[in-house]
């Protein structure tokens, strides 16, 4: 089975395909004129979706049933007038559960979550987050007040927002509980508030009940109790607590990968090298996993720019490269270069 990597960039969408994860073919740009913050191929039906944003034409979602040959645009996507808010950007698409084949979730700015039950034609805003009692304490990060992580695990949902923190719902999104205990917010007067944390990426492990990972503005964390408590992990051998992307291993819940940046003030790779760091012991220790990556580099990988599947890892840089590695040997190869700044990388099967 081959692999297909939809690469969202500041200037359109590119598709990378490979049969062996060594030789890559590049198609694109698709959706020229649009900044693609995130693009996915829905594993349930092979439909390609993109979060598309424009200086001029606003924020929307595009859908293609033929891998980019033809496109449809969302017909109804916006915020209700009484909210006093306007949709500023679309950030993240998450396919619904297998039992809801037409359902999709969409995260956006200003800290909003939408649900579609018709394959992205129309979207209904999630009232539980829109009207959350703590909303007035949320502040935008550099990327806006963006809802960028959506995880569906059995009966639970998780949403993460910069900078509001992480939230859990056990009633399919009707109500949301902040889950930020023990997560630092060094940029606020109160270091451990209920909400206001700048989570950069939140992932749940598909095979370990209750296990969550997050890369935060202030540290790397793991939870083993659905987010009720968090353990900070970046003192265990990482060169920095700051970064954006996060990747896991579907077969091993103790494995995680991060790409540390120097600091919040200096947002390029830590120690002047492009370094992916791996833990195999649930964050107790980290080691460099950078065979083949440039040893002198000052690049940045954004929050949606790091993806994984059973067979490998994939990330894209703001300087327009896409790197891929196979889990069997860990060596990195440059799958594409000289693209526009990469905003997102995902991975799907190439039929």
């Amino acid at each position: 089975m081959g692999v297909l990597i939809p690469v969202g960039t500041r200037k359109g969408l590119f598709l990378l395909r490979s049969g062996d994860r060594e030789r890559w073919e590049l198609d694109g740009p698709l959706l020229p004129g649009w900044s693609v913050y995130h693009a996915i191929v829905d594993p349930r039906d092979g439909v390609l979706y993109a979060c598309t944003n424009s200086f001029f034409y606003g924020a929307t979602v595009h859908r293609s049933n033929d891998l980019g040959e033809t496109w449809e645009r969302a017909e109804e996507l916006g915020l209700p007038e009484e909210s006093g808010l306007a949709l500023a950007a679309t950030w993240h698409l998450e396919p619904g559960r297998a039992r809801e084949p037409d359902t999709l979730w969409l995260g956006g700015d200003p800290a909003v979550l939408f649900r579609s039950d018709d394959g992205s034609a129309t979207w209904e805003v999630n009232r539980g987050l829109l009207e959350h009692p703590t909303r007035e304490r949320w502040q935008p990060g550099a990327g806006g007040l963006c809802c960028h992580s959506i995880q569906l695990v059995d009966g639970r949902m998780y949403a993460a927002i910069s900078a509001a923190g992480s939230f859990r719902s056990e009633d399919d999104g009707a109500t949301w509980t902040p889950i930020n205990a023990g997560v630092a917010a060094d940029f606020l007067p109160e270091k451990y508030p209920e909400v206001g944390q700048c989570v950069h990426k939140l992932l749940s492990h598909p095979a370990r009940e209750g296990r969550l990972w997050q890369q935060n503005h202030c540290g790397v964390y793991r939870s083993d109790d659905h987010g009720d408590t968090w353990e900070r992990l970046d003192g265990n051998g990482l060169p920095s607590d700051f970064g954006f992307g996060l990747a896991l291993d579907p077969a091993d819940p103790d494995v995680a990968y991060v790409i540390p940046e120097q600091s919040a003030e200096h947002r390029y790779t830590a120690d002047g090298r492009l370094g992916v760091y791996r833990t195999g012991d649930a964050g107790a220790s980290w080691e460099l996993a950078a065979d083949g990556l440039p040893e002198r580099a000052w690049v940045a990988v954004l929050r949606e720019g790091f993806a994984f599947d059973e067979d490998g890892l994939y990330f894209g840089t703001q300087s327009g490269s896409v790197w891929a590695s196979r889990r069997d040997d860990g060596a990195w190869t440059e799958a594409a270069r000289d693209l526009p700044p990469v905003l997102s990388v995902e991975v799907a099967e190439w039929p």
Partner: protein
Amino acid sequence: MAVVVVPTVLAAEAGGQKRFELEAETLGEALRALPIADLLFDERGELRRLLNVYVDGTDARGSGGLDGPLRPRAEVRVVGAIAGG
């Protein structure tokens, strides 16, 4: 019958059509009749901030706005403001 001309990105969204001939009493009516109207207006119905609209070469914001009457055979051009990166 007025003519509305849109930029390339909007033409792509409209199946490749760049020129639209339509009957409209006002500029706003003409723009809202386009198949890409949702990309011109936000959810409040306001023309997006970085879009300029010219009617027969004159910026519509300074001359009647969206409620201004459209003369027959007027040429309307939608142009993105100079911005980007």
